[in-house]
């Protein structure tokens, strides 16, 4: 899987535009940081699983936008051979966290396997924007923002 394939697949899985996930001139380089997790040896990703996910994505990536979510649902989410890896990519973007592929995603295991990818990956997790919130101890809001009603992102 290439970085471009990872970003376009991630856009389909998260619902965020690729340009949001990997903006031009990106100081934080979150997409590169998360993509590196797919080749991290300690993550124990079966090569065949990653190859299959890549192939499936390439086979449906040109699907017209209105039909793309359904194609992703059938070809990836309901495909037991690769759905877990696809879920992990969603977790990466939303939580900045990698979970052990071999175990139940709802149970935390060893921090050597289940881990926060990096401080920036964590603070840039999409979940914070979804909630109209920010990670504990870190905010880019203007002073006094806490007195305002949270705003939620507009996602098409």
């Amino acid at each position, binding site marked *: 899987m290439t970085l471009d394939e990872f970003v376009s697949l991630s856009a389909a899985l998260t619902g965020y535009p690729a340009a949001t996930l990997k903006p031009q*001139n*990106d*100081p*934080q380089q979150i997409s590169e940081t998360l993509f590196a997790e797919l080749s991290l040896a300690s993550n124990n990703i079966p090569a065949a699983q990653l190859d299959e996910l890549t192939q499936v994505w390439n086979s449906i990536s040109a699907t017209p936008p209105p039909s793309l979510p359904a194609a992703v649902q059938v070809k990836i989410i309901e495909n037991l051979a690769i759905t877990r890896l696809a879920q992990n990519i969603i977790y990466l973007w939303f939580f900045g966290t990698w979970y052990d592929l071999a175990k139940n995603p709802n149970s935390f295991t060893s921090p050597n396997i289940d881990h926060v990818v990096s*401080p920036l990956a964590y603070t840039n997790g999409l979940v914070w924007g979804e909630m109209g919130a920010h990670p504990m101890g870190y905010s880019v809001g*203007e*002073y*006094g923002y806490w007195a305002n009603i949270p705003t939620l992102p507009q996602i098409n």
Partner: protein
Amino acid sequence: MRKTKTIALLIAFAAIVAYIGSASCGNNTGGSKTNVAVADSGQVKTPLSPVLPFDVTLPPKGTGVLETTIRRSFDVFSWDSFIAICWPAQGHGVIGQFGDNPTVWETWKKNYEVFLDNGLPPAPWDTALQGKEANLSQTGKTPANMTAIFQPFLTGPLIDQNGQYNRFEIAMNKEMFDYIDTHKLYNIQGQQAFTDSVLFPQGDNTKKTYGAIMVKASWKILGKGDDTSRFHKVKAIIHIPALPSRGIRDSSYEAWVGLVGFHIGTRTTISPQWIWSTFEQVDNAPDYGKAVSGKHYNYYNTAAGDKALNKAPAQPWNPGIPGQISSQVARLTPIDTGTNALNDSIHKILVAINPHSVWQYYELIGTQWPVHPTQSNTGDPFPVYMANATLETYDQGSVVNGKIVYSPGVTSSCIGCHNASVTWAGRPSDFTYLLKTAKSLKK
């Protein structure tokens, strides 16, 4: 023979100018003159210019690359600004022509000349009266104050190899001063009565207007082991205000101090979160793990090891006690290679003016700016982290098992930190902590 030498010198200048210009191309709508102007002192010609840039001049839209060409544009802006405000204040020749020179920025208003202890209005802008002699003082009794000896933040003062505390000062240009003066933001009552958003003037290439500029200088008291020919130096009053809780009595003395660190913050149209340029004297500290054995550093002892690396001195702190344990400082993030190349090219120009120019011993550490100014309040700064070894000494990041670790909200970021600045009315103060140093009006 002399004519041949002069021609050779001019050819060298032309080559350097062409080199810089080729790497900083763009729509030349602004006031960035380093690459094109020729200042004529009557004695020395140089491509360096006393003219401040209004704003950064970027590569044509859509063609710039963040890490290279766009960074280069901002770095050129930083050097243009540095050269212009370190230009001789009295119009005597060009920068460094006589080795060292009193600078333009030293005639600007110091923070203590604007925010008076009694909260009264400051004296009118008059460069002939300002900055007569630097008064380097511990103005804040709490570490939260961003002035005086506590600039390296909550973690403590910076102590040089001679056991002397560093000193700091802050100055502002006329545009910034006028905004504070006009809106009566120089005391607490004025800020509380001010109901608009604090928005300092922006430099603008199209309108050809200058924005607010604030500078923060870091000085070391020159002493044993310091090669004074490598510093911009001034004779200053070293003032230690009384701090009874620590048994510190009020005292003052005069000493020669050398410039070791320098921040320039400039508010512009392209960068409303300000452009943050930071410079250092080249002998300050080695890159982490790359100390040169036996070399004299201002803040690193090659024989001491790294056990106390980038750790603040133990309490209690008292700048009045000589011979204290020195800080052991290394730079955790190396200077970018492109920035270093620009440093080299500027240094060559400075050496060509005068081989003994003190300004050749200053290097740009980096420039931080908001890449997407409207995306969030901080505008997505790049580089994400940036630190001056003398000003953010202990916030550069951490070394964990030999690996450098950076933490959002903890590791130094100019924009990230200044985003939290407020007025005495509890409203954002447009990325400057200066307003919070205002005092109550005493009638």
